[in-house]
């Protein structure tokens, strides 16, 4: 690991001053929340900052605030707290379930929501230092290489999959992100936060250098909303989704069997959380029967382009969508 200076700012403003100062003196910086992803990147020398700015010392960034318009979750809230928060669990089940499925209890105790959303890909070519697109090179080695866990949607020129469990849940919940950087702050819808490789093959989101995901804002949950997250892994724990589905259904207030609107977002299959807008349209205004769920499952893989070794993800995606949808529709 390359030696670095550790800085503990007391607030975000001071953190941004540190970013500006470092940039002014030609130094590189990295922002650390829980640090579980950053430490791995540092150890592998995939990032080599001169200064690590530790955000954990900042008070207030791990709060949950409920108000008239919805809930604001601080980016430094740990995944464990998020998974067990009673109000979030009842009103935004999909998010609590997604947080509960991340990695291991030890990682959930230190890993933060913002860190989970902003983590770098876990493609073995990237993490093992191959000169791929994510490491500043010009090739995605997965195209002709070991691509068992790579993208079936939205790939090219890079075929990484976005590794976050909470990101599909937040896109499904129509969350908005508050980003704070050296030149000010901005609010970005979760669906616009992630970028496809064809827009930027080196990065996975719109965060500018020195910018931090400060908090996540969820719209007020309606009484007719129900949601769930289903994750399929190649082993029982401590891994990312091979395929996952975050589903939020808004049921009709008069006829509770009828879906007024739906948001369905897949994880583990694309370089960004992959929204199924056509499937959502299919469900809108309909009673969700097993037959409709089967049609939705077929529609969910339209446009899939599997690589040489990940064709199994196509039927798996269909199965996950059908099962998750059927289970959620049956819930009271």
């Amino acid at each position: 690991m390359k030696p670095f200076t550790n800085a503990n700012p007391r607030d975000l403003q001071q953190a941004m001053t540190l970013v500006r100062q470092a940039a002014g003196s030609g130094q590189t910086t990295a922002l650390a929340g829980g640090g579980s992803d950053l430490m791995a990147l540092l150890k592998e020398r995939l990032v080599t900052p001169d200064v690590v700015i530790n955000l954990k010392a900042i008070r207030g960034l791990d709060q949950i605030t409920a108000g008239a318009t919805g809930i604001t979750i601080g980016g430094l809230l740990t995944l464990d707290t998020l998974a067990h928060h009673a109000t979030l669990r009842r009103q935004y089940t999909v998010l609590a379930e997604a947080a509960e499925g991340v990695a291991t209890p030890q990682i959930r105790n230190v890993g933060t929501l913002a860190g989970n959303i902003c983590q770098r890909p876990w493609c073995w070519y990237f993490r093992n230092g191959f000169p791929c697109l994510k490491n500043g090179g010009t090739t995605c080695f997965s195209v002709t290489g070991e691509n068992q866990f790579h993208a079936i949607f939205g790939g090219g020129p890079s075929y990484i999959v976005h590794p976050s469990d909470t990101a599909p849940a937040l896109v499904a919940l129509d969350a908005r992100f508050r980003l704070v950087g050296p030149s000010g702050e901005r609010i970005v819808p979760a669906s616009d936060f992630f970028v496809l490789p064809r827009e930027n093959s080196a990065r996975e989101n719109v965060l500018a250098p020195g910018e931090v995901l400060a908090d996540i804002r969820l719209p007020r949950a309606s009484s007719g909303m129900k949601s769930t997250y289903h994750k399929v892994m190649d082993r029982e724990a401590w891994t990312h989704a091979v395929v996952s589905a975050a589903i939020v259904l808004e049921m009709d207030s008069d006829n509770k069997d009828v879906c007024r609107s739906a948001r369905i977002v897949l994880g583990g299959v694309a370089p960004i959380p992959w929204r199924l807008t056509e499937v959502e349209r299919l469900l809108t205004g309909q009673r969700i029967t097993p037959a409709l769920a089967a049609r939705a499952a077929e529609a969910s893989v339209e446009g899939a382009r599997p690589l040489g070794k990940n064709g199994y993800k196509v039927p798996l995606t269909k199965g996950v969508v059908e099962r998750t949808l059927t289970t959620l529709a049956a819930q009271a």
Partner: protein
Amino acid sequence: MKVARREFLRLGSSRQSRERRRVELSCERLYMRYLDSIDECTTADVFEALERDLRDVTTLRLTCTAWLSREDFHSWIEPLFDSLTARGVRVVFEPRL
């Protein structure tokens, strides 16, 4: 310094009034009170009184929030939070405290 008539009669100040409207509530202590109320069969009264006490609050800061994970307790407190947030009160959960 301007002093509101009501504040003057209460021998208070606007600042004190503002501070009164920001309340900190320990979920641990409330949970203990809730347990007592089960024995006394006064749980509904306790939560009604709490809602009355929080009538003028603008921000409710909750500490020891891990105590909220008890489902039976949460089923009492959640309608209170819903009612407060619907009235525009900010309910802040402090996970670290």
